[in-house]
């Protein structure tokens, strides 16, 4: 019998750049995406800042990860969600979010999906395991 595909969720709650968690957390997501698992990534609280477009870390002198986020879908990470409330209380709208890839058929740019906390809570309850970064 084929092994069931496990649902693994990543939650990103920390802001980028002030610490390494978001950056190293991204490395885990990219590796795990190569395995047989049903991966979703949820950005909530200060984690939503990691998805803000226009991040430029050149002057800071660190590599940054905006380019990788811009290609998340190429790394087979399709289920990317943003907590609506976290985004709104930070004065952000969907327009502020960076593009994570393009739709395979329409070639339209794809942004992370903005959803409500209730939907996220329901998704959390369905996971096999959750890793927080």
């Amino acid at each position, binding site marked *: 019998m084929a092994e069931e595909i496990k649902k693994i969720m990543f939650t990103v709650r920390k802001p980028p750049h002030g610490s390494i968690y978001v950056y190293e957390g991204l490395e885990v997501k990219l590796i795990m995406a190569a395995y047989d698992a049903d991966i979703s990534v949820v950005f909530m609280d200060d984690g939503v800042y990691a998805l803000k477009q226009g991040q430029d870390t050149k002057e800071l002198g660190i590599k940054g990860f905006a380019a990788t986020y811009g290609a998340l879908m190429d790394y087979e990470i399709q289920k990317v969600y943003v907590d609506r409330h976290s985004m709104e209380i930070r004065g952000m709208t969907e327009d502020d979010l960076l593009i994570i890839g393009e739709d395979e058929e329409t070639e339209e740019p794809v942004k992370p999906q903005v959803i409500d906390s209730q939907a996220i809570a329901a998704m959390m309850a369905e996971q096999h395991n959750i890793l*927080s970064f």
Partner: protein
Amino acid sequence: MKIAVCIYEGPYNHEASDSAYNFIKAAIDKGHEIQGIFFYHDGVYNVTKLMEPPQDDRHIANRWSALGATGIDIVVCIAAAKRRGIVDDVLVPNVRISGLGQLTMMTIQADRMVVFGD
């Protein structure tokens, strides 16, 4: 039940390492199988033999090493370790350096993954 644990913070600086250790000991006492322990971020500093805490304090690296001696797979992330100067030569016995694929396998295969960090 198969339980895996991931630890993100360095020793002494943060309570995460102590909480994780106490949790793992309790899980073993209750007869659970520890699928693996994975050190990530500054957590990689937990298992360097270079640490030398005062006599009257717990020796965190030796504590992990003793758990490893019982057969529990203790893995230090290679990418996080290299970044921080942690290499095979400085590790306590009974732990190993490996890739994020190990964390992936633990997360998929264990019934529960418990993360300790800041």
